[in-house]
C-alpha cells in the first residue's frame, strides 16, 4: 500500500514537471482506463467520421473536389489507425477495441450521427466539425501520455487541409447562385449547434474533467475551448457573408454569445437516438464482417509464404 502511494506521488510529480508518460512507465489504473476510453473513442470517431463524407464522394461536383474529398476520407482512416495503435500501447487489443465499437459499448463523437443532406454539408463539416475538432486536438498535442500526444501532432498537421478545403467549398457556394447561397446557409444553420456540442457538456456538468486536468490529459475546459471556437468562427463567417444562428457580440464579456444548447438532445443522441446512429453502426459492422475473408486470406497467404521460405531444400 505504502509502495503504491509512493508510485502515485512519483507519477504525479512527473506529470507536474511536464515529463511525458510512456507505455512501460508505471501509471495509476484509472489513468490507463481514462486514456483507453478517450483514445479509443477518438479512434472510433475518425473511422465512423468517414461515413457521412463518403456519402458524397461519387457525387462531388468536380474532379478537384472529388480528389480532395477522397484524400480527406483516407486521412480519417489513417487518423483512426494512429489512434488505435496509441490505445494498444496501453495493453488493450485491436480486436477488443473493434468489438467494443461494434457492440455499442464504446462511444464515438455524436456529430457523426447526423446525415449529410446536401453538398454544402461537406463544406460545413470541413469548416465547423473539423474546425471544432482541431481546437480540441491542438490542446491534446500536449497531453501527458506520449503516444497519444505524438499521434495528435501527426493528426493536427493533416487536419489543416481538411479545414481549409471545407471553407473553400462554402466560399465557392457563397459566390454562386441564390440557390447555392441558400444551401450553404441552411447547412451552416443545421450543423452549428451540434458542432458546439462536440466540446462536451458545460464545465459545471462535466464528469471526467477534473482528473483529466490533474493528469494533464486535458489542459483547457470544455467551455473555454467552445468559446474560443465561437469567437474564431464568428469572424470567419463574415468572409462568407453568412451568419451563425444566435451568435451575437457581447461587448461586456468581450466574446460572442451563442445562446442555449440543447443538452437533453445531445445526451439522447449519445444514447443512440440520433438520426443516423443505427445506420452508422450497421455500416461499420457490415464492413468488418464482410472484410473477414480478406483478413483470413492475408494470414493464409503469409503462412504459405513463410512455409515456402522455411522449407528445407529438396
Amino acid at each position, binding site marked *: 500500500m505504502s509502495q503504491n502511494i509512493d508510485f502515485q506521488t512519483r507519477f504525479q510529480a512527473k506529470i507536474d514537471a511536464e515529463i511525458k508518460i*510512456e507505455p*512501460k*512507465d*508505471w501509471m495509476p489504473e484509472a489513468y490507463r482506463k481514462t486514456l483507453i476510453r478517450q483514445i479509443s473513442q477518438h479512434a472510433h470517431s475518425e473511422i465512423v467520421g468517414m461515413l457521412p463524407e463518403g456519402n458524397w464522394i461519387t457525387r462531388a461536383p468536380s474532379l478537384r473536389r472529388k480528389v480532395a474529398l477522397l*484524400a480527406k476520407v*483516407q*486521412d480519417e482512416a*489513417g487518423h483512426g*489507425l*494512429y489512434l488505435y*495503435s*496509441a490505445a*494498444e500501447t496501453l495493453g488493450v*487489443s*485491436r*480486436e477488443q477495441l473493434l468489438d467494443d465499437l461494434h457492440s455499442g459499448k464504446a462511444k464515438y463523437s455524436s456529430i457523426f450521427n447526423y446525415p449529410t443532406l446536401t453538398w454544402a454539408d461537406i463544406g460545413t463539416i470541413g469548416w465547423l466539425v473539423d474546425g471544432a475538432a482541431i481546437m480540441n486536438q491542438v490542446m491534446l498535442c500536449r497531453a501527458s501520455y506520449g503516444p497519444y500526444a*505524438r*499521434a495528435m501532432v*501527426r493528426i493536427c498537421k*493533416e487536419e489543416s487541409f481538411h479545414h481549409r478545403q471545407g471553407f473553400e467549398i462554402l466560399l465557392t457556394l457563397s459566390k454562386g447562385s441564390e440557390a447555392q447561397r441558400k444551401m450553404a446557409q441552411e447547412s451552416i444553420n443545421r450543423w452549428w449547434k451540434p458542432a458546439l456540442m462536440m466540446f462536451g457538456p458545460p464545465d459545471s456538468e462535466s464528469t471526467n474533467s477534473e482528473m483529466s486536468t490533474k493528469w494533464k490529459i486535458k489542459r483547457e475546459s470544455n467551455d473555454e475551448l467552445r468559446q474560443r471556437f465561437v469567437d474564431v468562427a464568428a469572424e470567419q463567417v463574415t468572409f462568407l457573408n453568412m451568419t451563425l444562428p444566435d451568435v451575437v457580440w457581447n461587448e461586456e464579456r468581450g466574446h460572442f454569445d451563442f445562446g442555449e444548447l440543447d443538452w437533453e438532445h445531445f445526451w439522447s443522441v449519445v444514447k443512440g437516438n440520433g438520426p443516423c446512429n443505427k445506420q452508422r453502426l450497421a455500416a461499420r459492422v457490415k464492413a468488418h464482417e464482410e472484410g*473477414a475473408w480478406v*483478413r*483470413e486470406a*492475408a*494470414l493464409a*497467404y*503469409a503462412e504459405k*509464404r*513463410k512455409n515456402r521460405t522455411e522449407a528445407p531444400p529438396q
Partner: protein
Amino acid sequence: MEKNTPLWEIFIRSRQGLDHKHVGSLHAADAQMAIENARDVYTRRQEGVSIWVVESKYITASDPDDSDPLFEPAKDKVYRHPTFYDLPEGIKHI
C-alpha cells in the same frame, strides 16, 4: 475462429542521408504487407523514402524502473565532453 494479425513497428527514413525514425505501429499479416500498409498510413504526403518494419514482439526495451542504475554510470563523467577541458582564450581551431 479468426486469428489476429501481428503488430509491427514502423521506421521511416524521411530523406536520403537521415536515420530511420520510429513513427508508430500497425497490424499486418506479414512483413511485405506491413510495408505496403505503412506506405498508406505513414507516407501519404511524401514523408519517407525508405521504410523498415519490425514485428513488435522482437523489440526488447529497457525497463523504465531500472533506468536510474542503467544510465547512472554516465552521470559523473563530464570529462567525456569537450567543454570539460580548460584552454587559453583566443586559441583557434580546437
